[in-house]
């Protein structure tokens, strides 16, 4: 197990390097750069930037240098000083914009994950052990609705209901008074009060899918010969459900851990925009549109790295609970 852990950790280093390279290349891919799209925006407003000003700006941002030099400066800044460069659009260090957004995104992701698991696992187990019972049908129906209704639509409906009937604005993650306040206990409490709405909406689709997965996996597992064999040894049904098959049926849950974060950032962006959540998705979208390369690059790099870390954690967990994986490495 220790050797396996070390091996996986060592493997993560080159992967992270490739990810950083890819994120940088990716943000350079669209034709033009931040300045040309900035100039275009100004032109649309009727202002003209002279060629000289543009060249000057380009030089001061380092945009005139070859791409590998730009990459080298960027990555050494991150690794040695934790400096992600300057957001060209916001005229602020990326660092300042990044961490609160990332922190909130991670908090929202983890709580959504927790919510989906807490919902999906018990319901999945119930549905599998009570296959074709009335409640199983109810859960299945709700599940299909949950899978079919797009999240942003659900978000709109929830916001509308909350506004019409309760006069409450459930958008965002903070009340107005805390929106730009420094962190305090009050702000954390305020966050918790707002978190559950996006958590519910973001989690709905995932939970519906996971219930199906859990039910199918467990049904599969419950009919395996080793369960019947254990029954023939006199074990009772509770042990036959929980001790053996549930553990095995949970494996796919753990292996999706690594994808939870990018999944929520991708799929959650539309919902986040709808609910005006101050998370990474909307800001990344904006940065990509305006070609704010250092900001976009930082987000992509961090999301990629978190995916690697998530996958690493889920692989180690899997190896920990499943000896077949652990012992063949």
């Amino acid at each position: 197990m220790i050797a396996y852990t070390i091996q996986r950790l060592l493997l993560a280093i080159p992967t992270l390097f490739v990810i950083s390279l890819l994120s940088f290349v990716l943000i350079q891919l669209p034709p033009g750069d931040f300045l040309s799209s900035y100039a275009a925006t100004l032109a649309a407003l009727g202002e003209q930037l002279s060629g000289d000003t543009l060249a000057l700006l380009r030089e001061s941002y380092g945009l005139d240098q070859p791409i590998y030099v730009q990459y080298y400066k960027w990555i050494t800044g991150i690794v040695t000083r934790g400096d992600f460069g300057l957001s060209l659009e916001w005229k602020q260090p990326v660092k300042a914009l990044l961490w609160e957004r990332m922190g909130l995104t991670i908090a929202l992701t983890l709580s959504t994950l927790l919510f989906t698991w807490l919902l999906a696992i018990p319901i999945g187990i119930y549905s599998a052990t009570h296959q074709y019972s009335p409640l199983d049908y109810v859960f299945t129906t709700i599940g299909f609705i949950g899978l079919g209704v797009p999240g942003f639509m659900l978000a709109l409906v929830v916001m509308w209901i909350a506004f019409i009937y309760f006069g409450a604005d459930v958008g965002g993650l903070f009340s107005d008074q805390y929106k730009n306040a420094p962190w305090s206990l009050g702000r954390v409490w305020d966050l918790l009060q707002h978190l559950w709405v996006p958590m519910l909406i973001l989690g709905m689709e995932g939970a519906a899918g996971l219930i199906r997965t859990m039910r199918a996996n467990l049904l599969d597992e419950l009919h395996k010969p080793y369960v019947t064999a254990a029954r023939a040894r006199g074990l009772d049904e509770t042990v036959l459900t929980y001790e053996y098959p549930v553990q095995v049926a949970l494996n796919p849950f753990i292996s999706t851990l690594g994808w939870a974060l990018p999944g929520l950032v991708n799929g959650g962006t539309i919902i986040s925009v709808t609910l005006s959540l101050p998370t990474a998705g909307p800001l990344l979208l904006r940065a990509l549109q305006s070609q704010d390369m250092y900001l976009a690059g930082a987000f992509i790099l961090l999301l990629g790295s978190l995916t690697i870390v998530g996958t690493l954690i889920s692989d180690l967990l899997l190896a920990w609970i499943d000896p077949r994986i652990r012992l063949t490495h």
Partner: protein
Amino acid sequence: MTTELIDPPARTGSAEAPRPLDTPVVLDVKDLRTHFLMPGGTVRAVDGVSYTLHRGRTLGIVGESGCGKSVTAQSVLGIVPRPGRNVGGTVTLTRRDGTNLELTSLDPRGKVIRSVRGNEIAYIFQEPMSALSPIHTIGHQITEVIRLHTGAKRDEARFRAETVMRQVGLPRPDAVLDRYPHQLSGGMRQRAVIGIALACNPGILIADEPTTALDVTTEAVILDLVRSLQKEGGMAIQFITHNLGVIAEIADEVVVMYMGRQVERAPVSQLFHAPQHPYTQALLRSMPRLGHRAHERLEAIQGMVPDPYDVPPGCAFHTRCRHYVPGTCDSPEYLEVSPRHWVRCSRAGEVA
């Protein structure tokens, strides 16, 4: 038909002559019926099966694939998977304390039947390779059973487990107990499975084709092992197989099944020397034997196994029987044609 054709193969290894069925009955199965109520109709997987198991003796159950051998065994333990249902018959177990217990009337999830399973009646599965939990060690799985049925503490259970593993011939039992199933060879896994079955000193062992997945050498070793364990412990064994060679090696009495029904039951030498049912005779002719010239082709049983949803009326075997006479074979009765030899054939006596 010559008697030479149906000579039983010689018993090999440590095999002994079949023993008389003169010991007490420990399991009495009467007219057992288990049906599967499927959307496409009812499958009468077990339809009136009767036999007895005797202390220290082995009953062999033979028949082609799908004839209901496994479902019979599962019915005894009350572990028939849905939509299967026990629809008749009785299974009477004589417990260790001498009392009798009727098993089919018990709640299949209840405490009483659970205290019988794995404790008084052990079951070795048809697919031993998949009968172990992949995510627990052998030691976990065996001590779990021991602790469940004997209330032993962890250390005692571990000690007992090591003893059993040594008994089934696993070298270094302490090491094997810490292994996971996928780390053992097929032969070792089968020994471990047998060890788990024997962990609580069951009075009855039901072995469902325990050697089918093994190579011939390992098969012989495992059969020897089962025999010697029976000698030590005096277990009654119900040995399920479709291999008549194995039956000849191990059984004292044999039940032949066809389409969920019992067609013949006889002491083993009687069955090999004087089979009465045409199906038994056909099975024997299809069996490879030592001392036969290689160019002699084995005779497959003619025709196809009928659809289980649509069992032929009258004698279920009549569609494949070379002795079928229309009108005569409509309702064969199950008759004792000689002491301890029962046959379900309207032409029994004429066709032998």
